[in-house]
């Protein structure tokens, strides 16, 4: 087994040979700049001055009162520029692409959040930007499509396969394979072939590092429970990584339980029927049928409906580092409204999944304990869809 980029047995580089030299070039550049103080300072400076880091660890007092148990803190990634944690990774990879002399970046996007983040950094650094988006999603997320165009990106609808995120990802890889010399592929989650899962995690791990520091300052200790939603798993791995060896901190990754447990009705890759398999370059848990064909994932949240998951999460699951659970569409919708009403914060539907898990978690907690939920994004983008789901006009 190729030991490069493995998390236990998971990960690897299952890509066409045509892509291998580019992955090797990327790995080399990444390892170099990872240790380069100048690069790191530039990255931190953009996170601070442009994206708005550090984000607050906000004490949600009314939500805490609502449950009457442990104190609840929200890690406010929703307050970042472009409205979600995606900007952390997009900035890091665009800076890397710039140093590698690439003139064009490509990205895949589901709901459009990563596409917007990539289009944003491409505008910031004067790079050409192509975003591949499933034709179905282009139709569902018109606002984000327009945002990307406004930022100067070219949005390419993908109608092959099922016309959703996994097909957009395949198409981005195909485009990258064809234009590998001058193009960098900014993958949006902690998925894909090595070095992507490691690199994306490293660009996102600032979330967990800040939670640790802020917890020590505000609570005088580490939280007891840390909760994050998980599709591909970038906000979750960014949140968990710094706590992976802390036995006293329980980590929960919340997947999309969708509308039922039937195949094709959810995105429960780790908490449901997923089995280890290979998609988009990595060996990881995967939703697949008995013939080894990939099963389309479903969730009310377009950012969670990916049939695979980052390989480091697969390792965390098997090693018991984190626990992976799920909540349904309805539970997430309820949590979306609950936080809006109780705290005056409209969360992204993705993040609403993490919030919904509090219903199950909170009764098990004690008043002297603390829970941190990563609020990965804000919910403005979801308002229309939620209105429709609730049978209201928006």
């Amino acid at each position, binding site marked *: *087994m*190729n030991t*490069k980029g493995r998390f236990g047995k998971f990960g*690897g*580089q*299952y*890509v*066409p*040979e*045509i892509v*291998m*030299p*580019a992955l090797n070039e990327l790995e080399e550049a990444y390892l170099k700049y990872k240790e380069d103080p100048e690069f790191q300072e530039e990255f931190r400076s953009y996170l601070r001055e442009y994206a708005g880091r550090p984000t607050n660890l906000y004490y949600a007092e009314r939500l805490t009162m609502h449950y009457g148990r442990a104190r609840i803190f929200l890690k406010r990634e929703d307050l970042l520029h472009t409205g979600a944690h995606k900007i952390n990774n997009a900035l890091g990879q665009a800076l890397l692409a710039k140093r590698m002399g690439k003139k064009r970046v490509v990205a895949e996007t589901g709901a459009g959040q990563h596409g917007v983040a990539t289009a944003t950094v491409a505008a910031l650094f004067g790079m050409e930007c192509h975003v591949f988006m499933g034709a179905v999603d282009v139709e569902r997320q018109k606002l984000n499509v327009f945002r990307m165009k406004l930022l100067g990106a070219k949005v390419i609808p993908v109608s*092959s*396969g099922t016309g959703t995120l*996994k*097909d957009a990802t*395949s198409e981005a*890889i*195909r485009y990258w*394979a*064809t*234009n*590998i*010399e001058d193009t960098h592929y900014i993958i949006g989650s902690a998925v894909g072939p090595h070095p992507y899962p490691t690199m994306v995690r490293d660009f996102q791990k600032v979330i967990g590092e800040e939670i640790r520091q802020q917890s020590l300052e505000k609570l005088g200790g580490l939280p007891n429970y840390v909760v994050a939603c998980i599709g591909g798993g970038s906000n979750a791995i960014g949140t968990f990584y710094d706590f992976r060896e802390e036995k006293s901190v329980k980590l929960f990754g919340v997947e999309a339980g969708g509308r039922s447990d039937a195949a094709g009705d959810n995105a429960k890759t780790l908490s449901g029927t997923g*089995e280890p*398999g*290979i*998609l*988009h*370059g990595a060996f990881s848990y*995967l939703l*697949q049928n008995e*013939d*080894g*064909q*990939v099963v389309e994932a479903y969730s009310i949240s377009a950012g969670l409906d990916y049939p695979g998951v980052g390989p480091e999460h697969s390792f965390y699951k098997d090693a018991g580092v984190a626990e992976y659970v799920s909540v349904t569409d309805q539970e997430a919708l309820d949590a979306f409204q609950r936080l809006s009403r109780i705290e005056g914060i409209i969360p992204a539907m993705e993040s609403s999944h993490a919030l919904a898990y509090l219903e199950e978690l909170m009764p098990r907690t004690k008043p002297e304990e603390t829970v941190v939920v990563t609020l990965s994004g804000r919910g403005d983008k979801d308002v229309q869809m939620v209105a429709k789901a609730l049978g209201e006009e928006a």
Partner: protein
Amino acid sequence: MSTRLENKFAELKQAGRKALIIYITAGMPDAAGTIEAIRRAEEAGADIIELGLPFSDPMADGPVIQTASVVALKHGMTLPKVLEIVREIRKTSQIPLVAMGYINQVYHYGFEKFVEDAMAAGLDGLIAPDVPHEEAGEMRKISAAYGFHLMEFITPGTTGERMEDTCAEASGFIYCVSNYGVTGVKEIDYSIIGKVCAEARRHTQVPLAIGFGIGTPEAAAAAAAHADGVIVGSAVVKRLLDGQKDEAMALIGNMRKALDKAFQ
């Protein structure tokens, strides 16, 4: 003992001919159609058949083979059914047959079980487009133990140590990807992969076959000048998709003629 694939290349080499390798998506439109297409392709002059295992997410393929995969899957093609097709072909033909498929379905089936069942059915090897040299180690070991060929790849970007490692462990033939991109007919300067083939030839005697982009008899001849054979997929599959079986076979026949004329 040498294999069907090795014998075929040896025989072609002796005759000074180039191998014409034809890719056909299994189950497009159905098993019977695939069996008929393979028989006719052999009659038209194909030396080796690449039998495509349709997959839900074919990331190295262009639109034609993507569409063919969707059709085949819709019609219920599975890995065990592909092996049935192989068994059926073997009743009447000894043409070398290699599967071409993304690794997940083979992994899901169980790699060693696949090799065992594939050998029993009469399949000669596997081309897994999403398994680069570095990831093939264990599979290579199992394949070698069974006398099954796991094909390696080189591309215009394969250089240095990676080229040497790839050549050192090559088996069957080396799939030489002609250009940066995915499968599908396009204009290509085959001298680029030609230089890579020349470099590979310094390290190995395993036959080299160039694929990706070849759509005409002229392109087949141009590519073949740099290798031991050529691989044609999308151009044939496109015609089969359009229901133009005769045109597909005529193209294979014309490629055969062009190759034999150019290399006598």
